[in-house]
C-alpha cells in the first residue's frame, strides 16, 4: 500500500461486496408467495439479477415478499428507487427483466404497461 489514493480506489471496489448490508440502495422486491413461485417468481428474480449483474450495477438490493393478495397478477415485482414511490409491476415474465432494469432501475422511467400499483 503506497498511497491514500490507492487505498480509496481499493475501498470503492471492495464496497460493492458489502453494499447490500447498507440500507440505502435501489430495492427490487419479488413476490415469493406460493402463488408467485407457481407463476415463476424464481425465474423472474434470476432474470432480474442476471440483468443487474450484466450491466454491472452496484447497490441494487433484491428482497422477496409474501403473497399480497393479487395472486392472479403474479409474478409481482416492486421497484423502489431511493426517495421515489414504490412501483408494483404485475404479470412479470423473465423476458421483461431487461426492460425493467434498463428503463426503471437505470433511467428511472416507469415501465407503464406492466404497472399495477403505485404507493408511498
Amino acid at each position: 500500500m503506497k498511497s491514500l489514493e490507492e487505498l480509496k480506489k481499493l475501498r470503492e471496489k471492495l464496497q460493492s461486496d458489502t453494499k447490500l448490508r447498507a440500507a440505502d440502495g435501489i430495492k427490487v422486491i419479488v413476490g415469493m408467495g406460493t402463488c408467485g413461485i407457481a407463476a415463476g417468481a424464481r425465474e423472474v428474480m434470476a432474470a432480474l439479477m442476471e440483468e443487474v449483474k450484466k450491466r454491472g450495477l452496484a447497490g441494487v438490493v433484491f428482497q422477496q415478499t409474501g403473497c399480497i393478495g393479487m395472486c392472479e397478477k403474479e409474478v409481482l415485482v416492486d421497484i423502489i428507487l431511493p426517495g421515489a414511490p414504490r412501483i408494483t409491476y404485475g404479470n412479470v415474465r423473465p423476458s421483461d427483466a431487461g426492460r425493467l432494469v434498463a428503463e426503471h432501475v437505470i433511467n428511472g422511467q416507469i415501465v407503464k404497461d406492466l404497472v399495477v400499483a403505485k404507493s408511498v
Partner: protein
Amino acid sequence: MQFIRAHVLVCGGTGCMSSGSRQVQAGLEDEIARRGLDNEVKVVQTGCHGFCEMGPLMIIYPEGVFYVSVKAEDVPEIVETHLYKGRIIERLLYREPLSQKSIPSYDEINFYKKQRRIILSNCGHINPDEINEYIAAGGYEALGKALTLMTPAAVTEEVKKSGLRGRGGAGFPTGMKWQFARQSPGEKKYVVCNADEGDPGAFMDRSVLEGDPHRVIEGMIICGYAIGADEGYIYVRAEYPLAIKRLRTAIAQAEEMGFLGKDVFGSGFNFALHIKEGAGAFVCGEETALLQSIEGRRGMPRPRPPFPAVSGLWGKPTNINNVETFANIASIIVDGAEKYAEIGTEKSKGTKVFALTGKINNTGLAEVPMGITMREIIYDIGGGIVDGKKFKAVQIGGPSGGCLPEDMLDLTIDYDSLTAAGAMMGSGGLVVMDETTCMVDVAKFFLTFTQSESCGKCTPCREGTKRMLEILTRITNGEGREGDIALLEDLARGIKQTALCGLGQTAPNPVLSTLKYFRHEYEAHIKDHVCPAGACSNLTGYTITDDCRGCGMCKKVCPVGAIAGEIKERHVIKHKVCIKCGACEGKCPFKAIRKGA
C-alpha cells in the same frame, strides 16, 4: 451466474461458538447449496456482537433481520422461509424482556438502541478474517492519513486533543503517554498492546480482537509512527485462542497488503508486529509485569519510576495501551479530535465498552458514551433486573473497582465520578446485584480473586489481602468478631498506601466500597449473626414478618425453642438459638416466615 443478493452473517465469536454457531454455519452452507442458492446467498462469519447470552446470533441482509438463539435445526426453515421466500421467522426474533415484543431489526432492540458503537461498530458486521471487509468499512484510512498527511507530532497532538484516556483501568491520558514515549530519547522504541484481559466477566477486548482485529492493529501502527517505534507486541492471553488466530491472520494480511512492514504508504515508516501469548496470570495486565513477561521473566511488577515510556521493554522507551484504547485511534484520526471529543463529558471523552453481567435481563457488551447514567445502562440497555427483583448494587471496575448502591444509580459514568464514588472505571466490568446478593460475600469473592492472583512480590498485597480474606471469610461464616470492621479498614488503608503496583493498591476497593455503602450488612453478620440477603449459608436466618397473626404454630414446631411470642402477637425468632431447619417456614399458615432478615 453468481449474483449475491443476500448475506447471512453468522456470529463466530467465542460465546456464540460455544453455543453452537459452527454447526449452524455449516448446516446453513449445506442447505443453501442443496437449494441451489449458493450463487445468490453468501454466508459470512463475523466476530462478536456482544450479546452472547442470546447466541448463536445471525443477521440476514439486505433486510437486516436479527435472529437470536439459532439452532442447527432452524436452518432448513431459515433457508426455505427467509432466504427463498423472503419471510421473517417470527419465533427466532429477539423479544424485549419487559414488553415481550419481538423485534426484527438489530437497531430497534433496546440493548443496541441506547448504545453508541464506535469501537464495536464493525464487530458482528464484518468478517474479521477478511481484511477487505475492514477496508470496505473505511479501515486503514486513518493510517494512510496519519502517515501521508500528518507528522508524528501532529498525530500525538491529535490524540492529546481528543481527550482519550486509557481504557485499561486507571484512565491516564493516552496522548500524554504517547508524548512521553515520543520525547524519551532512544533509537529503538516499542509499542505494546495490553490484551491480557483478566477481570472476571470482562470480555470487551476479546470481542474487539475477535471481531475487528485490524482496528487494533491500525491503532498500534499509528502509535508506532507517532512515538517513533518500529516494532510492536500484542500481549494476549493464551486463553483467547480464537483472538490469537484472528490476530495472526490479520497481521499476515496487513503485511501482505503493506500496512505492516517496510515503507508503509510510501512514507518510509516501517513497522513490525508480533504476538506474545501470556500464560494466564492476572497480574500480567499490570504494564510492568506484562513487560517482564514479554521478556521471558516471571510476571511481577517492577517499581515505577522509571516508567515504561522511559525504560520499558528490554529497557527501551515503550508505550503500552490496552486493546480498547488502540481501537479508538482510527476514528480520532479520521474524524478528527474535535468530533471525537463531542462525545462524553468534560474530562472523559468518547465511549466506553462495558461488560454487563449479573442479575440483569440483557447481559453482554454495551458501548456507551461517557456521561451516561448507571440507570440507563442497567434499565434501558440491560433491560432491568431478572425476575423483577429489587436492584441492590452494581459492582463496577472488576477486582479493583467497587460496589455502588441504588442511590448512586443516577451517577453519570466517567473516570472521575466513579473514582470519587469509591469505584473505578477499570476495564469496564459491570456486575449487577439484586436483593439476594450479600455484599460481604461479594467483597469476599473479589478478595479471593485478588489474593490468588497476587504475584506475591510485595508484602501488603501478598499477606494483607490474605488477612482481609480471612476476616471476610469468618464474617460470612458467622464467626465475625468485634473489631473486625476496624481491622479490615486499617488493613485496607495500609495496602492502598504501601502496595507496589496498581493491582495491590486497588485490591481493597471492593471491601472499602461495600463498607462505605453497606456497612450495616457487615454489622448484621457480626453482631446479629444474620446475613440480611440470606446468602451466607451459615447465617441464613429466618425472620417473621408483619403478616404474623400470632397463631403459635411456628413456636410449636420449632425443635429448639428459638421462637418467642404471645398468642395473637407477632412472634420473633432468636437467631442465636435458631438452627435454620426451616420447619417454621413450612408450618406458617400466613406465609409470614421467610429466609433472610
